[in-house]
């Protein structure tokens, strides 16, 4: 009997390690021979720790399991138990998804290359090894894949620039500095299917002529760091990484680098400075990292999900991937449903689902049972959406058209207790804490913005106009998205929730 208990950080935060220990102890006490697999999460966080049991009859799930439930699960012989959920694939939240990037996440042992290969892994790399470098880049362009970190820049075009720039050394850098609140897709795939990221980076290296890769993981993700490091060692040992990738004439190797708690290092140029051992200060562009990136060399810098999606594109073909989606947003997007929701977790689906369907149907509304007031889409730099914009379909251009952004595709749901003036102030406070300090609109604007929100709260006339003007300056004058996009949450809160910025009404309510 094989028992799966996730090793994902969210599952562990909800007691998965204690459950795993209890299962080992209970099996030993009963003299049962079990194999315990610490898999990734299936992404249904409200059911974590989600324990799966595989017998000759198939694989069935139980959850959320606590250590004290373990005895009764064994007594019921993992059958007819109050926590029984049936097969994961039959749970509506899961059944409704299209899993391409996350197809293996939670299904396999993340640190078993054999498991990885048995579920379609390495097939993409083998296909890529049969192609010329130009064909590899073309395949990515054809797939329509765009940067999943948030900018949405076409991945193939970025790769082509690096491919076409001659240099003795080029780099593949994976941006795993997933600092946006409401996002955890990078963490989840690194903990649940690390080889797919390794494979994606290797294909990128072969495609653009880079032999060295770095995964820059934020220090807040110790579990992801550990899994990635172990997976890289295993891949090296198996000849997937090294001087001769799978016996080919291509060399590619990679290592993990750990961030140091600076949100701004998720911005690609400050990440490159950080990798070089400098302050994580944003660089002015041009030069583009694709031409002068890490140590001045041509560098592909892509988000975890962009790179982790590359293997499935080569496994199933660019056309297969491109056929999913909406408008210019092709393929699937792993949406992270977070905050005050009934069913939170990772929901991978083709672009195009409306925000309302996600919030009301998939997420099941709020956990508190109160009405949804606002949904912040795209992290701390994303806009707050009110209910009357819930028909916006999930896509880069579609959200842009509504004054927002999809960012790294995290959605954070707030109930009617949320005070949007406080949320606007928090956005500015966060910007002030995390600003790298290089450009004035961000460094000073964030602080002045906080003060101005306080003046609005105290009912000072003219303060709202001042905030609007300041936000325009930050938007137009900042070097990077931190200062440039902080106006999104601030101004969306102002325009969609004006009552919260009206001091007299607020005081009346209190």
């Amino acid at each position, binding site marked *: 009997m094989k028992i799966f208990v996730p090793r994902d950080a969210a599952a562990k*935060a909800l007691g998965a390690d204690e459950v795993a220990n209890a299962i080992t102890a209970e099996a030993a006490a009963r003299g049962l021979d079990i194999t315990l697999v610490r898999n990734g999460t299936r992404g249904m966080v409200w059911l974590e720790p989600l324990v799966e049991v595989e017998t000759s009859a198939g694989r069935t799930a139980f959850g959320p399991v606590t250590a004290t439930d373990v005895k009764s699960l064994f007594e019921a012989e993992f059958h007819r138990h109050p926590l029984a959920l049936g097969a994961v694939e039959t749970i509506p939240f899961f059944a409704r998804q299209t899993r391409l990037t996350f197809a293996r996440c939670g299904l396999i042992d993340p640190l078993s290359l054999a498991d990885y290969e048995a579920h379609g892994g390495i097939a993409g790399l083998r296909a890529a090894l049969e192609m010329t470098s130009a064909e590899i880049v073309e395949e990515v362009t054809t797939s329509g894949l765009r940067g999943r970190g948030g900018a949405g820049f076409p991945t193939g075009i970025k790769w082509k620039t690096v491919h076409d720039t001659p240099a003795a050394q080029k780099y593949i850098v994976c941006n795993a500095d997933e600092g946006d609140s409401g996002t955890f897709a990078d963490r989840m795939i690194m903990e649940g299917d690390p080889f797919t990221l390794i494979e994606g980076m290797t294909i990128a290296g072969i495609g653009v002529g880079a032999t060295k890769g770095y995964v820059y993981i934020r220090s807040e993700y110790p579990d992801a760091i550990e899994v990635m490091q172990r997976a890289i060692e295993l891949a090296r040992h198996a000849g997937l990484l090294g001087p001769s990738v799978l016996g080919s004439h291509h060399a590619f190797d990679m290592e993990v680098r*750990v961030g140091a708690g*600076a949100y701004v290092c998720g911005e690609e140029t400050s990440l490159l400075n950080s990798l070089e051992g400098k*302050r994580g200060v944003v660089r002015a562009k041009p030069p583009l990292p694709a031409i002068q990136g890490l140590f001045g060399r041509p560098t592909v810098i892509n988000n975890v999900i962009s790179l982790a999606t590359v293997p499935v594109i080569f496994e199933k073909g660019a056309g297969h991937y491109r056929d999913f989606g909406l408008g210019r947003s092709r393929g699937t997007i792993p949406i992270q449903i977070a905050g005050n929701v009934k069913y939170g977790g990772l929901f991978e689906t083709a672009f195009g689902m409306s925000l309302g369907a996600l919030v009301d149907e998939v997420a099941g509304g709020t956990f508190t049972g109160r009405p949804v007031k606002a949904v*912040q889409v795209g992290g701390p730099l994303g806009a707050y959406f009110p209910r009357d914009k819930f028909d916006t379909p999930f896509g880069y251009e579609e959200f842009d058209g509504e004054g927002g952004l999809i960012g790294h595709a995290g959605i*954070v749901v707030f109930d009617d207790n949320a005070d949007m003036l406080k949320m606007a102030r*928090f956005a500015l406070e966060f910007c002030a804490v995390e600003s790298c300090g290089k450009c004035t609109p961000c460094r000073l604007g964030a602080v002045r913005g906080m003060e101005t929100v306080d003046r609005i709260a105290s009912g000072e006339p003219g303060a709202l106009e001042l905030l609007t003007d300041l936000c325009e300056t930050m938007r137009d004058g900042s070097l990077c998205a931190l200062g440039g996009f902080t106006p999104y949450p601030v101004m969306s809160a102002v325009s969609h929730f004006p009552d919260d910025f009206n001091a007299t009404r607020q005081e009346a309510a209190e």
Partner: protein
Amino acid sequence: MAENSAASALAQRVSEIIVEHEGLEGPLLPILHAIQAEFGHVPDAALPQIARALNISRADIHGVTSFYHDFREHAAGRHVVKICRAEACQASGGNAVAEAALSRLGVTWHETTPDGAVTVEPVYCLGLCACGPAAMVDGKLHGRLDADRIETLVGEARA
């Protein structure tokens, strides 16, 4: 004498850490992480040695250590409690959890209790956004916290 030998032990260990990271491209952050893992902070006394080894100035290193939230100039308390302040945790009651922890310990953010037991720090996202409010106590993650649970956790840390 004791001070001298402590200083030479520090120099010895820093030198070993520098050697362990030889050959890395951009070795400064990995070196600083290793030194902090060893000593609990980045001691001032280590800076000249790193500066010499990497052929950069002490000011460059100070610029780096002061830029990143992770690097400490002084050791933290015996236990470190990091509480998420970001939006997703706020949406599920994070502010009340943070207030409960701070008032129970009688400190504000970044402070250590007078007995040196617990340091409380804000963190902006632990990636536990679907099971917030979240915190990390000495590296262990906790999700779905409420005021009672965080008070128990910080109480245990302080004991």
